[in-house]
């Protein structure tokens, strides 16, 4: 036993290995784990659950049917467009407010607590309120998405604007740059990595906001597609929607990671 534990540890903890060997060695356990998970799921559902419950084989069987279903496609389109619109609005709004907040201590003192408060608030509590204000419409969904996304962008951009190196600002002011130009040409680029980190959070929250809003408001979209199909016991079809949402979640994440690496290769920061 002790013999074995003395010789074993190096590979057990080995992180700095050549990339090729690492990814090559990773594929097999990953595949095995995936298959095990799917197998367990399939087995449990087949043994104990009612027939309508989604399981891997039936979900896979449902995929080709669902992805050509015009209802599904338009639902996906509606949700994606709403998320994109909401994120765009939140991005512009959040960047402007965040920059101002980060560079103006007076403004920061005034609105900091509100931004923090709204950020910490579980965003879905505003749904009943938005449904009263905007009605059960896609406007309420858009408002929810913006609300869900904007505060994480404000917080991160403000952090970034505060962290701009002093020398940059001094050089700018010694060349008699106006405050507006400094903000746009110095502070904004310096805060971009923070902006991306905020956007990454915001994208995830926006997606959740969209789905929750569709549940709550019964507005047509992917969330509503899932709700409707699961209520009518079409669990397999509904689950295809969940898979697509998961794919969106992951691809947002990967996109931001890729963008950070590609456009800001000089930038490294501990993940928050």
């Amino acid at each position: 036993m002790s013999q074995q534990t003395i010789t074993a540890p190096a590979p057990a903890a080995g992180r700095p290995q050549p990339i090729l060997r690492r990814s090559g060695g990773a594929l097999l356990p990953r595949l095995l784990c995936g298959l095990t998970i799917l197998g367990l799921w399939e087995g449990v559902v087949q043994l104990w659950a009612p027939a309508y419950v989604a399981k891997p084989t039936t979900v896979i069987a449902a995929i080709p049917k669902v992805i050509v279903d015009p209802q599904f496609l338009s639902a996906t389109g509606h949700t994606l467009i709403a998320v994109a619109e909401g994120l765009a609005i939140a991005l512009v709004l959040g960047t402007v407010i965040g920059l101002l907040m980060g560079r103006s201590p007076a403004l920061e003192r005034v609105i900091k607590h509100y931004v923090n408060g709204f950020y910490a608030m579980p965003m879905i509590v505003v749904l009943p309120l938005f449904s009263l204000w905007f009605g059960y419409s896609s406007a309420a969904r858009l408002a929810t998405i913006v609300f869900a996304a904007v505060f994480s962008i404000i917080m991160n951009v403000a952090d970034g604007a505060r962290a701009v190196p002093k020398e940059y600002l001094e050089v700018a002011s010694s060349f008699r740059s106006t405050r507006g130009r400094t903000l746009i040409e110095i502070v904004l680029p310096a805060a971009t990595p923070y902006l991306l980190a905020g956007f990454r959070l915001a994208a995830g929250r926006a997606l959740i906001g969209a789905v929750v809003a569709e549940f709550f408001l019964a507005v047509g979209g992917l969330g509503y597609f899932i709700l409707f199909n699961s209520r009518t016991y079409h669990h397999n079809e509904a689950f295809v929607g969940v898979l697509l949402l998961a794919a969106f979640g992951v691809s947002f994440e990967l996109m931001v990671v890729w963008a950070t690496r590609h456009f800001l290769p000089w930038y490294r920061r501990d993940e928050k």
Partner: protein
Amino acid sequence: MVPFSETMRRLWELVTGGEFIAQFLDSATLFLTGFFAALIVGAPLGLLLARVRSLRIGVEPYIMTLYATPMVALIPFILSLMGFGFGPKVLVVFLFAVFPVLYNTVEGARSIKPELIEVAKSYRSTEWALWRDVMLPYTLPYTMTGVRQAIGRALVGMVAAEFFLSSTGLGQLIMGASQNFDTGGVFASIFVIGIIGVALMRLGLSIEQHFARWRQ
């Protein structure tokens, strides 16, 4: 819209009427049960994955995927499979909270320096001592980052469960007020949940910083 005074008046009514306290305790029970279930499952599982390398490599991408998946999408399934009881609601809170804990613990485990384990091993450390003195202290700050995220997500999960499964607690307070077009009541409840959110986030941050001290 309603004036601020109306909101405050409704808040006062809710608090003094006893309705608020009852709903708050209801929500707190749900939140704490789900959150601690997530902690009890997530943290040890994460540590286990930290030690068993092949298993960790195997499940890592799946944990990452589930971490990025909007868990709200599963609520309709939980509803139609498990109905309206307390159990399904706890499951929702659990699902919201468990992946941040798991993901961050695994992330921490990944970054353990191999030298630390090698040194421990070359001093013939037992498996138990290795866990107690190396693995646990090293991954704990990461786990606590997960705990902070999980607190926020569990709160969202709590409200989502109260909205979409059986209506109870603070969620019901909001829903009831909005169905009666009692905007003052909606604002009052949102205000309270906002305060709870801020308080919990502060708590999470201080927990995280407390455990992360040695990292600086």
